[in-house]
């Protein structure tokens, strides 16, 4: 049998109030793609941070090849051939793509001057492999989240890696970018690099991995050979039960029109968009990244002024100048970028959750502790948020639990119109189905829900109707009974199969 590229043995890692890892062992073979799965907060990222030199374990040891190794910091880990592509982006926005990729190891000329020509040439070579639409000189800050992710991945290709860790790399990638990523992984695999792949997306796991190890509550639960197992087995191991992943066929009672949009345009971002959402209805917006869906949501939330068209809430035309207006009108937006737009990372869980309504949760002039904690407790239970308590800083939560805080924050506003933009990004399968259930439940309680998602199963699963968008245009609206995967894929590529019902 081949020797593992690296091994973690009996790793224990505790944080104040949390036993994040409780004696976990894990190994990856050269040329193997090894999936690491588990619920939000199970300890996947923490285990990888131990391996990447970001956290020091309280107990246990790391073997690289045969050698015990201590990773005192990320640079040491990198020097030992361990490359870590993070769940949360960690790029310098003010620097170019090339500088980010070679940060700390810029090629030099005499007198320590940076050799820009070589730097750009090398970078462009890597970028070509990744088939991305930007070059070495582009400022990272101007790139979309997906493209920034590609920059992180490009970093991995610069070193002679023994093992590459991908922590939820596809969370914000489009399908075509995913294809490229999987090619990259395949290449690395052929070169004998061990790949650790963390994801909550079963299709990917089954497509690209060789083995699957499962963590639960910081404990190792077992390893399965991908070819010999099923999604259901993995789910069972992860959360101890099976899930219903079928399409939505139940419809809530549909009421009055809550939101009507007429001929809405915003420069080049989207053009002449018209649709309506009724109370009790979930309308899914499906399309590729950049189709203009997020921008429509931002307009509806008062963040982006439209250049033409009307927005009507409950039949009355409204002008939404700011989120303050939108919130006052009963609109909630769970934004796309939880770290940048959704959360104040340095604040505790409770304060983040109650932020939009803190002005109303008062007793006299003061914020009412009791009222806040009541809301927090309610949504912690409803969404199964794993945290030692409301005082925990949100930045210390696992990625998926952070997302749940954002969702709780906007659900607790009891909106008439709830807009969710990629609501289950980074959320584990169990919680994902809980959130989908919750969205259906909200609809049946008379809420109007707009779901923006790049995941087809998600759109199919929750929507009563599906709006397909392509390059800023509304191509077609489907009802959930008539939609097929093929027709949806065609629509989001700009092919109008049935122009008949463009206006919803």
């Amino acid at each position, binding site marked *: 049998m081949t020797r593992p590229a690296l091994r973690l043995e009996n790793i224990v890692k505790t944080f104040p109030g949390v036993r994040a890892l409780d004696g976990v062992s894990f190994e990856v073979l050269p040329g193997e793609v090894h999936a690491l799965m588990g619920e939000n907060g199970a300890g996947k990222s923490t285990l990888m941070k131990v391996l990447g030199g970001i956290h020091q374990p309280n107990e246990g*040891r790391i073997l690289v090849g045969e050698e015990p190794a201590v990773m005192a910091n990320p640079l040491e880990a990198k020097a030992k051939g361990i490359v870590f592509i993070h769940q949360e982006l960690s790029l310098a926005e003010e620097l170019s793509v090339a500088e980010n990729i070679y940060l700390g190891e810029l090629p030099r000329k005499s007198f320590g001057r940076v050799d820009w020509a070589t730097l750009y040439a090398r970078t462009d070579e890597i970028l070509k492999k990744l088939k991305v639409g930007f070059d070495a000189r582009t400022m990272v800050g101007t790139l979309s989240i997906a493209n920034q992710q590609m920059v992180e991945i490009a970093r991995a290709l610069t070193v002679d890696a023994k093992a590459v860790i991908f922590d939820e790399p596809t969370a914000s990638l489009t399908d075509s970018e995913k294809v490229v990523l999987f090619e990259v992984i395949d290449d690395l695999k052929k070169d004998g690099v061990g790949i650790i792949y963390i994801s909550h997306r079963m299709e990917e796991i089954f497509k690209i991995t060789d083995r699957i190890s499962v963590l639960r509550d910081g404990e190792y639960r077992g390893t399965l050979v991908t070819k010999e197992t099923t999604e259901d087995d993995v789910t069972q191991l992860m959360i101890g039960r099976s899930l219903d992943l079928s399409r939505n066929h139940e419809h809530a009672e549909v009421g009055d029109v809550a939101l009507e949009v007429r001929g809405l345009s915003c420069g080049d971002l989207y053009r002449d968009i018209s649709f309506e959402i009724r109370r009790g209805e979930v309308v899914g917006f499906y399309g590729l990244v950049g189709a203009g869906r997020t921008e429509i949501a931002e307009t509806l939330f008062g963040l982006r002024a439209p250049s033409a068209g009307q927005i009507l809430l409950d039949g009355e035309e409204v002008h939404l100048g700011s989120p303050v207006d939108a919130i006052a009108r009963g609109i909630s937006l769970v934004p796309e970028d939880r770290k940048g737009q959704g959360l104040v990372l340095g604040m505790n869980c409770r304060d983040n959750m109650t*932020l939009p309504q803190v002005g109303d949760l008062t007793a006299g002039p003061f914020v009412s502790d009791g009222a806040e904690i009541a809301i927090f407790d309610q949504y912690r239970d409803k969404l199964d948020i794993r945290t030692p308590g409301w005082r925990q800083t949100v930045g210390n939560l696992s990625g998926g639990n952070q997302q749940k805080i954002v969702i709780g924050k906007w659900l607790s506003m009891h909106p008439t119109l709830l807009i969710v933009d990629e609501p289950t990004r980074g959320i584990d399968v169990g919680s994902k189905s809980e959130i989908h259930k919750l969205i259906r439940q909200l609809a049946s309680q008379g809420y109007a829900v707009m779901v923006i998602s790049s995941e087809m199963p998600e759109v199919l699963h929750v929507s009563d109707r599906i709006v397909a968008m392509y390059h800023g245009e509304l191509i077609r609206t489907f009802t959930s009974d008539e939609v097929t995967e093929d027709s949806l894929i065609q629509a989001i590529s700009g092919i109008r199969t049935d122009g008949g019902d463009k206006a919803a």
Partner: protein
Amino acid sequence: MSEAAQERSARNAGGSSGAKVGTFLAKQGILIAFVLFMVSFALASERFLDPDNILGVIRSSAILGVMALGVTFVVISGNLDLSVGSLMSFSTIVVLDLHDTLGPALAILAMFGMTLAIGAVIGFLVGYLRLNSLIVTLGMLSAIHGLTLTWSGGQNMDIADKAGTWFAVFGQGRALGIPMPILMFALLAAVLGIVLAKTPFGRKVYAVGGNGTAATFSGIRRARTVFTCYLISAFCVATAGLIQASRSMGSQNTVGQGMELEVLAAVILGGASLMGGSGTIFKTVIGVLILGFIQNGLLLIGLQFYVQFVVTWIIIILAVWLDIAAKRGRLLSPIA
């Protein structure tokens, strides 16, 4: 087994417990240094722990302290205020000048009005126009100084009839046996501490400083929040100017010069982050006291006045370093 155990303990000593000591130091470094200073000062000079000396230190720290309270709001909101020293000179000169023409009550009222107006201008520029606070307040530092000199014609200001006015009460009076400056500092600290910690507005200040975009996405009026912070800062400066004027009953145009940095140092010393989003009024008060006691201690052990400057600033830089180290979670940058 024993080998593994040995290795484990070796790693613990080298790795995680080292990091632990680091983070502990990063969190408590200021207090530890403070205690060390206090002990060595107390050993070096028996007068140091004398109640009169302690009360004296607090009293002379009160003006700086009052200003630091307001700047704490500004810093937590993610901005800077370098104009407070200059603005304090302005309030002092204005209230002294108007005292003889308008009488104490009206003079105080007019001075507060003018100081708040200047604060509103800064708040507008930084909050609504989103200009960089460092540039704005640095510019205001000079502009306000010019304004003060224009007002005074470059002359010192004095109250003519020092015996015939109750104006001295703010700087020199006592209530319940406690000097008024200390009382005012304490009162303002209590009120502003509660505002920051307990009211919705306080929460919004933290949110805006912690992540302005997320705050906007949460329906918080970012501009208004920043604007209000500068108004609070101006109010504190006006109060400090009042204490200063009342204490000396006369003043030079440059009375507040350089205080903006000392104020900022006290706020950072207390643990507020220059990046915004963290800090408390209580910690700022601690920062002010530490700064006051260090200066007093250095004086008492007979350090030359100018050497004091150097030592004080070494301590301040130490504080900023610890602040950043706490952020990184280690004392030295991993990429050093």
